[in-house]
């Protein structure tokens, strides 16, 4: 019943907290977890991090490959995403239905996903079925079948998703923003590819991309749950030992090409959706933590950020408004979004620009900085309250190369930020005139500059 409940609450969330997956690994401290992390190496030589947690008879395994759409060549855009869809569609002796049936019988949860820079394997298994569940995952990773019928079905699903993006105001805004920011680079298009490119993908394309997408040299592993390091090492070898090594993907960095200004895409909807942003920071930038602390006050702090206060609380112009650092592997962005009725979106954007400029000029008050630190340090532990979240955090921290002590040290990094740091970083990063804004809807008083 507990599980059934997950799907049954047609609840309407008020005051949505703004969280974005990409930046979740940048704050806080959880002593309990940090004390429990084992940094280990499998017998076969694969490094991994483990937290042993015996209270529930389940094991979470997370494998992150630093690959994603970034490893795709010209003409096969979307092949890595299609691969993520196809790995669960039959492997070894099991056809698509057989694989699905076996997974249900083991009550195992196996998921594959991909993005611009990452390919992720997320699995949760019952301890009692661990061996067989790992074997099923191994089959999927090493002996996928890519049969014609499931390929046709999954390809059609992906294309349907891409077509849907073309009619959703938020997706259209986001896709155009990235296209304008990163022309002629892999970041300029959606990582799922285009309807044309995906239509042309074949079984051979999937096989050809596998070594690059599932490159063990680019893999990071986290295991959390009812298992010790010795047993985990054996399982990890089973999963990764048969994967062929490939050359590491390119990591040269792209700058944002888009200039300040507004692009409008006309769509007949009552509410306009705006995405705005400009150059941000890579995660490895020494200013990242001060910038993260600054952004809490500007646009990240949900209920009490300046953007929410001005746009939502004082003028009632939007249900949701926010800004966030968006560090990717090859580019750093500073992005935000707001949605307001067509007759009010211009005012919302005016307020956003004003707050952007005010922060760039004056930074934060000592009181605001203190409040930001209290929240960011206090809430860090909330990111480690489930096996699944911890496994994902372990992989994220390894991918960002922050070191095993990061969880322990992170709060002191936040505490060390001064008002002067924030002011300097705000001045370096924020530029209201450089904001590239894409608005989708039928906005009033916003004639596109181009």
């Amino acid at each position: 019943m507990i599980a059934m409940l997950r799907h049954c609450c047609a609840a309407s969330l008020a005051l949505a907290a703004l969280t974005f997956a990409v930046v979740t690994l940048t704050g806080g401290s959880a002593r309990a977890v940090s004390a429990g992390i084992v940094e280990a190496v499998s017998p076969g030589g694969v490094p991994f991090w483990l937290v042993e947690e015996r209270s529930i008879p389940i094991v979470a395994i997370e494998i992150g490959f630093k690959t994603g759409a970034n490893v795709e060549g010209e003409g096969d855009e979307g092949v890595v995403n299609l691969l993520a869809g196809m790995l669960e569609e039959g492997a070894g002796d099991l056809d698509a239905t057989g694989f699905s049936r076996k997974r249900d019988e083991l009550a195992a949860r196996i998921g594959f996903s991909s993005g611009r820079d990452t390919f992720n394997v997320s699995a949760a298994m019952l301890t009692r079925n661990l061996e067989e569940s790992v074997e099923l995952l191994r089959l999927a990773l090493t002996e996928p079948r890519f049969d014609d019928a499931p390929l046709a079905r999954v390809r059609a699903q992906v294309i349907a998703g891409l077509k849907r993006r073309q009619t959703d105001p938020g997706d259209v805004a986001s896709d155009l923003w990235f296209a304008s920011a990163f022309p002629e680079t892999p970041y300029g298009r959606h990582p799922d590819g285009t309807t044309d490119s995906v239509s042309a993908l074949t079984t051979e394309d999937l096989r050809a991309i596998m070594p690059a997408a599932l490159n063990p040299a680019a893999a990071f592993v986290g295991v959390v749950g009812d298992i010790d390091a010795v047993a985990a090492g054996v399982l990890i070898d089973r999963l990764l030992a048969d994967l062929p090594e490939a050359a590491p993907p390119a990591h040269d960095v792209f700058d944002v090409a888009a200039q300040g200004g507004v692009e409008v895409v006309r769509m007949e909807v009552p509410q306009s959706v705006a995405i705005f942003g400009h150059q941000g920071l890579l995660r490895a930038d020494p200013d990242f933590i001060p910038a993260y602390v600054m952004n809490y006050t500007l646009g990240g702090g949900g209920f009490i950020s300046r953007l929410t206060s001005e746009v939502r609380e004082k003028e009632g112009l939007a249900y949701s408004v926010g800004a966030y650092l968006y560090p990717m592997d090859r580019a750093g962005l500073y992005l935000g979004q707001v949605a307001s009725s067509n007759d009010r979106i211009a005012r919302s954007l005016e307020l956003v620009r004003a707050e952007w400029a005010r922060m760039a000029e004056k930074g934060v008050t000592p009181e605001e900085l203190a409040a930001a630190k209290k929240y960011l340090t206090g809430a860090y532990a909330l990111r480690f309250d489930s096996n699944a979240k911890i496994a994902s955090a372990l992989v994220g921290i390894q991918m960002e190369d922050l070191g095993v002590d990061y969880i322990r040290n992170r709060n002191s990094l936040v505490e060390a930020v001064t008002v002067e740091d924030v002011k300097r970083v705000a001045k370096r990063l924020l530029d209201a005139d450089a904001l590239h804004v894409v608005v989708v809807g039928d906005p009033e008083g916003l004639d596109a500059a181009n």
Partner: protein
Amino acid sequence: MIRVSLFLLAAIGVVWPMAAIAEPKVSTFTLENGLRGVVIEDHRTPVATHMLWYRVGAADEPPSETGVAHYLEHLLFKGTEKYPEGEFSRIVAENGGQQNAFTSHDYTAYFQRVAVDRLELMMELEADRMTGVQLTDEAAALERDVVLEERNSRTENEPSGRFREQLSSALYLNHPYGDPVIGWRSEILDLDREKALGFYRRFYSPDNATLVVAGDVDPAEVEAMARRQYGSIPPTGARPDARPQEPPHVAARRVEMQDPRVSQPYMLRFYLVPSVAAGEPGEGATLSVLSKILGGGLTSRLGKRLQIEKEMALGASAFYWGVARDETSFGVYAAPVDGVGLDALEAEVDAVIARLIADGPTEEELARAKTVIIAAEIYAQDSQSQMARSYGAALSAGLSVDDIQAWPGAVEKVTAEDVRRAAETYLRLERSVTGLLSKPDPEETAESADGEGESKG
């Protein structure tokens, strides 16, 4: 060969020694003023989830005031005498807490997630706004604009959102589950401070609420804390009125909507079925098993027939919203591949359901569905906040802690004939509304610019 061994495995999978399902440690208490408390222990990390659930939701709203329960939920963040506007959120944030609130047809809930040593402070804040909200006309008017923007995002901007709203509305002939939780736009426009406060004074009281605390806590300490913080608030005897119930359904309904922004057409059907709380013992568990067998993935009846054998559907599924106080819905969804019409797809869905009613599920299907449902209970324990939310929702829908803990056992008892009979009894067209969402036919659009069913509120 594989198939043989899989059958064996499935047969073994049925036998779940109940002890193997590590039950969460859950205890309950009731304060003198009627506030019920539930404590779910999770000692993995020093974190707690604090939730206060009012047993009142959108289905308890006065006539012509749809959306007032949700609107009031927003207004509970507008401050009290003790903690003026902004203080609540500021204090929660400065204590490293995260918070939010949500409204459904049956309940309105407020929650914070914090380090466990801040739990009592959260109780103090939540208790204060149970009766202490202060509200100006201006703040109420501003927040109404925010709610309208929320409705824009969720519904007006989304063809699918408007379609589902029409579908739910057509399913219920009399019960307020047919009205959207967020409210009809025309009625949101008429909401104001007085209406919100009227609802607040009538329904927000300790004897109409359930406190749920999950985390690294001691149940006796939580009870003592709750008594200190909530114990002095007097009960009011608040009870929502009995709701209008559904008359017998005797006619199948259809909703057909076209919108130029629909890129993927689909069919969605809702059947009126008993909720776990409203049904006979075991009925909810049976419907849950039925939903998995009919539409739980590629190996389900719909997945196998529509996606694998006939290659007609991009996706197909069935689902059961069992946690509700009154009669609820059982949904069937299917999206066609290019070149297949919704009518042909619907006919195939009907054929699949007819076959299930005629023959019932196989023992293998039954075993697999049970395995998935029962294992989900184990996985669910990994998320403290989800556990708190699930208990709160179930209790607010009229179930007890015992009902929740008896769920795996109830699922275990379901027989193939139970499933067949439930399908025969409830999956009848006269108990349903069938919705078809599609893009306007290009030829018709040339003549009339307005897509049928499209309404700009």
